[in-house]
């Protein structure tokens, strides 16, 4: 809803798809759950499986071997790098980049620009850009714009010069080709991507340096080279492009802040998932943009993390307002209009997304939240990447609280992720050198070894933010399984007190040039990297 | 029927007592089981345990592996090979038996569940009562109606094993004979993995039938003195006055 000056006055966010995976899981073998929940989303494939095996291990009391933790970290960080790059180039860049304008670019000038932006990147010759331009020309001339059809080309909100647009298009294609390489790391350890395999108690793959039917030197070398290649893409393509494009949109450091509450569960454990003090991605909450204090999180406390359904299409038993996920209920109750419909009623239920709250507060989760929690916790690695970027864009830290800040934070943490990838690889090698090649702890594989009734939680920091699975196991079967997903936090509808979710509040106050071509809204929504499949599950 | 019940002989003598009562003794011998019946019986009786054993091994290979090279052994390969060979043997034997159902002597059809005939139900009820009284009653020269049911069930289960087994076999050779002939049955049973499960479950029911069968044969033979055990070797059964000679085309 816009006011008369074309500024967004009110917004609601609705998730219009629901599959009922939490319901489908009931009564099943907890060891199978990872495969079901992994199918919540193919874009952030891996993270739900990881949260799931952690939840089961937490419930029945399994400590995974060191190598398993390292391999899980490598797969997790691989997902970060791949997902973030894909998001930037293929799901977000076209909000900022005008493909059609690239036709007007001068290839030689583009080459000069590219050399300036990323001096050590190989494909920066004028001939290369001329070729790309021809491809685009042929494509546009064909009149069949395919996925680029009906976009907002020529919209006044596009600010990049033609050369920058051409460079970005070239890198769009390069990133598309590269993303299929990095995921080979998942194939090595998990057999395939999307949806690599996980295992309760460790990882399914074995290590045998003296055999060729398990992880050996050839496999390790492949992983190593892919990591190095990924670092190259992040340092020479992604982050330079990001900063270059950002410098054309300074006004977007003032738009789209939203809630001002940020939460990260943390991840990349160095001493097991039970020791958050040793996480590479720190855990904590920031309220009201107060970087002076990072609050702790207790996933087991019945009063901290809760979900509400006041504006969601679910039923809680009479009078219940909010439930901790261990007691969570997923009972669909659609009260919206019968399709086809034009509008949803924002006063009633209007979404398949539940409304999660931390101690009653709506939270933003994701790269920006992590960056801020890392920064506010005084972590030097976070501080270093943030200050460097702010310096290059010549803005202060307050610029982080914005649409552009969110997009930038994603790029900056990808730098850290790529670096940690190599660190984790080196740790794996060191551990193997020390003679430890174990990858699975099977002492509690058999359900007979489990308690009759137990509960667990599996936290993770998915690319889009704080993710946790809660499981209640009874008689060796899943009694209750609840997933609270990053996009559930961000796409949350209003709660019982009328508090808006992160998307809803970030859109408020956004100025729009043309209400029929809402490219500005897409910039903010896309800056969260929304995932509907995840949000509703 | 009523007439038959009247011919009931006196109860058998309890253990330990002196032989004061007359125990009915079989007095007549009948040639009941022709050669194909006896032959297929023993082929089945050999094939079933082999199939069950190899089948269980296929399902859960219980020999634990010892280090060595794969070429040195072919354990699973042999188990499957035996399973398939005996599977074909069983099917062939059943085919012969089915053929003999139509061309053999009347005992070859005895006991078959002719469920569309009222007389069959009477016979079943009668047989149940007999078994519950633990008395000799009369003996069928041929299969009694309950035995007939379980044999029909047995053959049906074997048929099911044959269809599912051959359909599974056909999966290894797509476009081959069994795939073309029986491949279509797999989706009906919920897909290949479910077919394994049903095949496996049916195997247990065959074993259950066989178990009851052996017990009842021994029991019958022991208490009723009809020479039942010997008959499946020699072909001859013993009868007394009042035993039912099912010497008609059916039941």
């Amino acid at each position: 809803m816009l006011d008369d000056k074309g500024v967004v006055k009110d917004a609601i966010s609705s998730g219009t798809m629901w599959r009922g995976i939490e319901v489908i899981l009931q009564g099943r073998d907890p060891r199978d759950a990872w495969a079901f929940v992994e199918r919540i989303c193919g874009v952030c494939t891996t993270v739900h499986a990881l949260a799931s095996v952690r939840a089961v291990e937490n419930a029945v009391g399994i400590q995974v071997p060191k190598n398993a933790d390292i391999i899980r970290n490598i797969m997790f960080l691989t997902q970060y790098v791949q997902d973030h790059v894909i998001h930037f180039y293929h799901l977000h860049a076209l909000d900022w980049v005008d493909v059609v304008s690239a036709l007007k670019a001068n290839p030689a000038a583009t080459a000069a620009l590219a050399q300036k932006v990323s001096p050590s990147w190989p494909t920066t010759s004028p001939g290369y850009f001329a070729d790309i331009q021809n491809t685009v020309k042929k494509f546009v001339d064909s009149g069949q714009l395919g996925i680029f059809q009906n976009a907002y080309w020529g919209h006044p909100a596009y600010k990049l010069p033609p050369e920058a647009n051409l460079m970005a298009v070239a890198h769009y294609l390069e990133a598309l080709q590269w993303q299929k390489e990095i995921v080979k790391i998942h194939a090595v350890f998990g057999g395939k991507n999307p949806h690599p395999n996980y295992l309760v108690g460790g990882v399914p793959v074995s290590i045998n340096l003296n055999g060729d039917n398990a992880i050996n030197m050839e496999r390790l070398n492949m992983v190593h080279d892919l990591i190095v290649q990924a670092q190259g893409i992040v340092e020479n393509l992604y982050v330079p492009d990001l900063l270059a494009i950002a410098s054309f949109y300074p006004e977007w450091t003032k738009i789209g802040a939203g809630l001002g509450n940020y939460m990260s569960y943390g991840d990349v454990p160095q001493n097991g998932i039970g020791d958050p003090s040793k996480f590479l991605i720190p855990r904590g909450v920031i309220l009201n943009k107060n970087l002076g204090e990072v609050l702790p999180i207790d996933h087991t406390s019945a009063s901290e993390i809760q979900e509400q359904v006041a504006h969601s299409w679910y039923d809680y038993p009479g009078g219940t307002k909010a439930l901790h996920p261990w007691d969570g209920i997923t009972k669909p109750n659609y009260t919206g209009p019968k399709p086809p419909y034009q509008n949803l009623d924002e006063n009633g239920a209007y979404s398949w997304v539940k409304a999660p709250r931390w101690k009653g507060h709506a939270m933003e989760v994701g790269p920006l939240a992590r960056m801020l929690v890392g920064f506010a916790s005084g972590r030097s690695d976070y501080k270093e990447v943030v200050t460097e970027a702010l310096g290059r864009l010549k803005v202060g830290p307050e610029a982080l609280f914005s649409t552009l800040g969110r997009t930038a934070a994603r790029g900056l943490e990808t730098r850290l992720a790529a670096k940690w990838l190599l660190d984790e690889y080196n740790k794996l090698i060191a551990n193997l050198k020390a003679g430890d090649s174990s990858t699975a702890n099977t002492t509690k594989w058999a359900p007979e070894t489990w308690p009759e009734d137990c509960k667990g939680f599996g936290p993770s920091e998915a690319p889009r933010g704080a993710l946790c699975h809660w499981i209640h196991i009874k008689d060796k079967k899943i009694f209750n399984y609840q997933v609270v997903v990053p996009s559930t936090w961000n796409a949350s509808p209003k709660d019982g007190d009328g508090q808006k979710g992160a998307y809803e509040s970030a859109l408020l106050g956004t100025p729009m040039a043309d209400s029929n071509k809402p490219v500005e809204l897409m910039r903010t929504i896309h800056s969260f990297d929304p995932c509907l499949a995840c949000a509703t599950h | 029927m009523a007439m038959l019940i009247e011919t009931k002989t006196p109860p058998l003598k309890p253990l330990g007592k002196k032989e004061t009562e007359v125990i009915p003794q079989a007095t007549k011998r009948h040639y009941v089981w022709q050669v194909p019946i006896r032959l297929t019986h023993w082929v089945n009786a050999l094939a079933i345990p082999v199939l069950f054993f190899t089948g269980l091994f296929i399902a859960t290979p219980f020999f634990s592996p010892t280090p060595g090279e794969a070429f040195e052994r072919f354990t699973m390969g042999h188990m499957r090979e035996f399973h398939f060979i005996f599977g074909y043997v069983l099917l062939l034997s059943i085919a012969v038996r089915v053929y003999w159902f139509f061309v053999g002597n009347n005992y070859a059809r005895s006991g078959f569940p002719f469920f569309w005939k009222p007389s069959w139900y009477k016979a079943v009820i009668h047989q149940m009562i007999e078994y519950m009284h633990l008395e000799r009653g009369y003996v069928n020269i041929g299969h009694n109606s309950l035995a007939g049911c379980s044999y029909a069930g047995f053959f049906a289960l074997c048929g099911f094993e044959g269809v599912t087994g051959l359909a599974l076999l056909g999966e290894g050779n797509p476009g081959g004979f069994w795939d073309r002939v029986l491949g279509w049955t797999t989706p009906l049973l919920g897909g290949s993995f479910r077919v394994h499960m049903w095949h496996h479950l049916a195997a247990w029911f065959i074993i259950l039938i066989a178990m009851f069968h052996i017990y009842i044969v021994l029991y019958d033979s022991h208490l009723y003195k009809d020479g039942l055990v010997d008959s499946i070797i020699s072909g001859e059964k013993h009868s007394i006055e009042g035993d039912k000679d099912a010497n008609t085309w059916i039941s």
Partner: protein
Amino acid sequence: MEVLERKPSTYDILRAHGVDRRTFLKFCTQSAAAIGLTSAMVPQLVAAMEKKPRIPVIWLHGLECTCCSESFIRSSHPIAQDIVLNLISLDYDDTLQAAAGFQVEEIRKKVMKDYKGEYILAVEGNAATNDNGVYCTIGGESFTNILLETAKDAKAIVAWGSCASNGCVQAAKPNPTGAKPVYKLITDKPVINVPGCPPIAEVMTGVLTYLLTFGELPELDRQGRPKMFYAQRIHDKCYRRAFFDAGMFVEAWDDEGAKKGWCLYKMGCRGPSTFNSCSTTKWNCGVSFPIQSGHGCIGCSEENFWDNGPFYQRLSNIPVPGIESTPDSIGKTLTVLSAAGIGAHLVSVVARKGVRNLTSNPEPEKSEPAENQNPENRGN
């Protein structure tokens, strides 16, 4: 890169991919048949196709995880870029699309009109059929209706992944949304099923390029799957098969056998019941596939595979409510009960009748068996 004078037509594109004129004509004839044109109209269609642009593709997303799209863009030969820029015209795909909102829905309607009977409909995910399809709506319209509407004038339908071709995870019991695969909703048109969760990237692009290159549907099996990728079981092409035949199995995760790459059968591997090309084509440019990385196949391209669990069990549980245990536990229980029953019977017999002395049996006299063989006696 060569710039064509006029817009590249379907014929240009096919020719660039090595399709000769004869195949092209065949393609046209089949297309004509597919859209119900008489053979007399084929020449017109040929003329049209020679000038007509790249084949438009509408890619719908229903109840799904978007993984099939993710897999698609991982294709190494051909790479996704070539397909999207040169081979087809991916006119509608609300995930990859640059536009959003009602502009996207406009495109779909326009393609359906302008290319009536010519576009390929690719479906990822499936349709919720319970409660008017409210579990999946796009722009206020139920996906179920969008699917039916778009399918009506499609030239061919490709069902991507297990969602579209089998139902997949959301159709697992108790299937709260009434999710149904495409073939159960669209029965008047051939649907090419490309199952897998997700399907292998090169399988997906292979199916599409086959359609375009040879101008005909690939040969499909009984379940509508292209034989070129789904004819054989994983197990029959698995590099661990030698260990299976030898009887050398992984007995526990990360044990000696696991390190040596023995067969994963006892860990629940579904390879013996799964038709897919993982063990030959492999994943991610041939780097690996589930079994090669130590985990059994979970049968992700098979119908009902989610309900064939638990995954780490050699056999599925019996899918009868209230039973839900394995054939072996049922079999063993029944056997024990029966043995107990037999024992009890025996005891009661002994108690009531006593054990008889078999040896007191006199030899009965022999009867005439001749009458039994008399065929005249047949009949009741």
